[in-house]
């Protein structure tokens, strides 16, 4: 596997412009001769479908949900960053670039991040023009807030529903192209395999989730915008249907997988309440702007919070990080919560929770003031827990929320398979080892609106692609492969449900490859995951048949892939003998318990190449160079 990141040369602020000029264009009259498949309709997939179709390409867009508007980008609450500097508070493209590289703990590509920061300003303009109802000041200009530890106010938001509004903007732009006849939509279709012909991605195999029909779809290029793989943990803030199947099947065709162990555990989620729990709900981290996080100083202190006097409380973030306090980045806040719970100072029935207390904020701003800022979040919390956060402190605990890892792509968002582009959370590119708040929406839309439409043209203009027939042997093989897996899953008829396996896998990953990892635990996981996988293929029970709407079968295929991907996550975590961002190896920490990077040996992207079933994947490395933001230990003290 050859890893050529195709990073342009020259000063960083001119690289994207230079690249855009160097890339070939497709003649407007020729664009309609090309067809492009886009899988996924979140911010990345929706915006890419719309933008490519506007240029004149024929786009075929697929999603497993009943409507493209359901994609999980919709659940993002907090906001989207852009270096507009509307607040005159010292923000700039360079500062957003700097913050993102540092926040990613020096494991992201500088050139990509700079491009992201440059494009951020165009995204806001585009979304406003589409009718996204961003929050406004009385004078009619856009409002901003500070978010996720940033020291400038560069986050644009639409109440607590920013993701929803941006997604609807992209969805509507795409639906406009459906009206124009340039986007063809395939809802309730799940991609189950990639079709590769002569080393180039030329199509996908889908299963129609209502009829069970398995079919090949062909095109000149394939774009995966299928999101992250955080549902490997079973309990996560992801939508229930979110899965890794598309990227995993691409990986098995030779797409390199970058940094699979870089997963983000979000610090402010509602804690688990019982065995039956099906997912975890995130509370926007904007709550940390005014809420104070604490636990009792005493271990196993079972008093209700109101009876614990001030001097017996430990505001541990404020104590450990006086400069940033409750606003330290996500990885640090999550780990600190785990540490105090491990000490036995966690709160709530399970002991896996910490308080997020608004008593001071209510005193300072009044109940009304707090309600204005966080009303919808407080209501949501009360709806789920039955507790009133205006009177009792919230209980929060970290949960799997985002994956920085994903399929490796070059500067032009192409994977190691020619013609296979990967955008949004599904790729590994811009967040390094830790993503900052309000940056996921930015990256998804940057890729879809403003990067892919250019780089796709260059690929198509340079390739001579023969027309292929749906009867091609590559299609037949891929279809047979899909049908074989389905048949196998339905025929096992064992004793355990798909969910019970998924839950067990999730517990394993959470325990050994979660917020803190060590070699011993990872080795244990690497023994237990293959055993679990073996049991899965002998003992899973999938009811029903293929030729119908069969939700158990859908899940079964996804969990089968998680059972393989989980192993790669552990393998990568074990290989990376350092701590950085969301990857915290207990063996590598400073005396104060902070992450200890090893820039000498691990300043690279780990890219894994599939070598066949039950064979250890091959590791390749893309070295990272830092010319502008020099690696230092991240300090938020």
């Amino acid at each position, binding site marked *: 596997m050859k890893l050529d990141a195709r990073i342009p040369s020259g000063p960083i602020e001119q690289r994207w412009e230079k690249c855009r000029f160097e890339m070939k264009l497709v003649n407007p009259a020729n664009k309609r001769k090309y067809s492009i498949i886009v899988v996924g309709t979140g911010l990345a997939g929706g915006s890419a479908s719309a933008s490519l179709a506007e240029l004149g390409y024929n786009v075929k867009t697929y999603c497993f949900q009943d409507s493209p508007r359901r994609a999980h980008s919709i659940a993002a609450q907090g906001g989207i960053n852009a270096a507009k500097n509307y607040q005159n508070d010292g923000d700039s493209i360079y500062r957003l670039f700097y913050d993102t590289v540092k926040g990613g703990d020096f494991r992201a590509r500088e050139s990509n991040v700079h491009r992201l920061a440059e494009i951020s300003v165009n995204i806001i303009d585009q979304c406003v023009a589409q009718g996204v109802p961003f929050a406004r000041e009385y004078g009619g200009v856009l409002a901003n807030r500070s978010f996720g530890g940033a020291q400038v106010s560069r986050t644009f938001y639409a109440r607590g529903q920013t993701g929803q509004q941006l997604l609807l903007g992209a969805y509507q*732009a795409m639906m406009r192209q459906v009206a124009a006849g340039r986007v063809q939509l395939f809802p309730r279709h799940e991609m189950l395999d990639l079709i590769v012909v002569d080393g180039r991605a030329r199509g996908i195999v889908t299963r129609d989730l209502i009829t069970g029909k398995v079919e090949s779809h062909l095109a000149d290029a394939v774009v995966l915008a299928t999101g992250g793989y955080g549902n490997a943990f079973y309990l996560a803030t992801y939508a229930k249907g979110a899965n890794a199947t598309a990227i995993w099947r691409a990986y098995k065709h030779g797409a390199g997988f970058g940094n699979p162990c870089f997963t983000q555990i979000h610090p402010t989620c509602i804690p688990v309440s019982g065995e039956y729990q099906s997912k975890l709900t995130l509370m926007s981290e904007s709550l940390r702007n005014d809420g104070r996080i604490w636990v009792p100083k005493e271990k196993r202190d079972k008093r209700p919070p109101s009876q614990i006097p001030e001097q017996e409380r430990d505001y541990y973030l404020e104590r450990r990080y006086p400069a940033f306090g409750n606003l330290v980045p996500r990885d640090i806040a999550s780990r600190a919560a785990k540490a105090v719970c491990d000490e036995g100072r966690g709160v709530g029935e399970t002991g896996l929770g910490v308080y997020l207390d608004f008593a001071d904020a209510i005193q300072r701003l009044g109940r009304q003031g707090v309600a204005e800022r966080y009303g919808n979040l407080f209501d949501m919390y009360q709806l789920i827990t039955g507790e009133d956060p205006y009177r009792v402190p919230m209980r929060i605990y970290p949960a799997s929320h985002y994956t920085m890892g994903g399929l490796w792509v070059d500067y032009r968002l192409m994977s190691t398979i020619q013609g296979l582009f990967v955008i949004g959370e599904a790729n590994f590119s811009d967040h390094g080892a830790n993503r900052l708040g309000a940056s996921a929406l930015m990256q998804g839309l940057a890729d879809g609106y403003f990067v892919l439409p250019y780089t796709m043209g260059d690929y198509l203009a340079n390739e001579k692609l023969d027309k292929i027939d749906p009867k091609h042997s590559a299609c037949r093989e891929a279809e047979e492969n899909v049908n074989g897996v389905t048949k196998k899953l339905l025929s096992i008829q064992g004793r355990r449900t798909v969910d019970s396996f998924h839950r067990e896998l999730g517990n394993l990953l959470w325990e050994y490859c979660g917020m803190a990892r060590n070699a011993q635990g990872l080795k244990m996981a690497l023994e237990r995951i293959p055993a679990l996988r073996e049991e899965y293929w002998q003992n899973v029970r999938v009811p029903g048949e293929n030729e119908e709407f069969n939700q158990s079968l859908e899940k079964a295929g996804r969990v089968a892939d998680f059972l393989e991907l989980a192993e790669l996550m552990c393998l990568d975590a074990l290989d990376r003998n350092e701590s950085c961002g969301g990857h915290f190896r207990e063996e590598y920490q400073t005396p104060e318990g902070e992450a200890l990077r090893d820039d000498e040996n691990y300043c690279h992207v780990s890219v894994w190449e599939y070598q066949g079933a039950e064979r250890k994947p091959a590791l390749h490395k893309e070295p990272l160079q830092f010319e502008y933001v020099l690696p230092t230990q991240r300090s938020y003290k």
Partner: protein
Amino acid sequence: MKIVLHIWRQKNANAPGRMVRYEVPNVNTHMSFLEMLDVLNEDLIEKGEEPVAFDHDCREGICGMCGFMINGEAHGPLPGTTVCQLHMRHFQNGDELYLEPWRARAFPVVKDLAVDRCAFDRIIVAGGYVSVNTGSAPDGNAIPVAKEAAERSMDAAACIGCGACVAACPNASASLFVGAKISHLGLLPQGQPERYRRALNMAARMKQEAFGSCTNIGACEAVCPKSIKLEVIARMNRDFLVGSWTDRGEAERGEAAA
């Protein structure tokens, strides 16, 4: 606590359906309604029976994928809530609940409690957008938007497209859904150039999709999980009327999308 469920079971769009009785013992009050159904389904699978199909995805009340009738109420008894955010603490031990899919000609049943809501997408295709290509936007602050207009637009834009309004309406009208989109875009300066044409085209499409007409009953507003106000229907009607009077024929009245 114990809950008794009567659930509509229907193998596919063409098969006849029927209510089937199930008992779920040991329901925890902290469970969400869908988690209770998960528990029932795990039990059914272990017993070798077919689990109950229902749509769901985010389970945070924002994606709009879940939804069915509980004792005749869309999304159940709690106002302003999707069924995924409805928790069992709102029910009593021994409650008997009747679960049925959305009932509307425009929403054919896929299986059990899952329905096909693609008609909503086709209404959006008819005009639920601002026609602006990527790259052609002016600076975000170039056009000021009054805070109140932005807020009211956002109130309407909060619609999640779940279809509860249609299910609750005796006429199976989609007016709350369509009115919400027309209001979201029509309240902003960016939505003005296509405002009347949008109302004409979306309303025409709604009719073609076999949704009924609005007779101002208000059941939609009562069940809307995002508390969208009836006012949006008034706004749709006003834009539709103005459009009908002033239209000079350039509007395609949905034919382009058909």
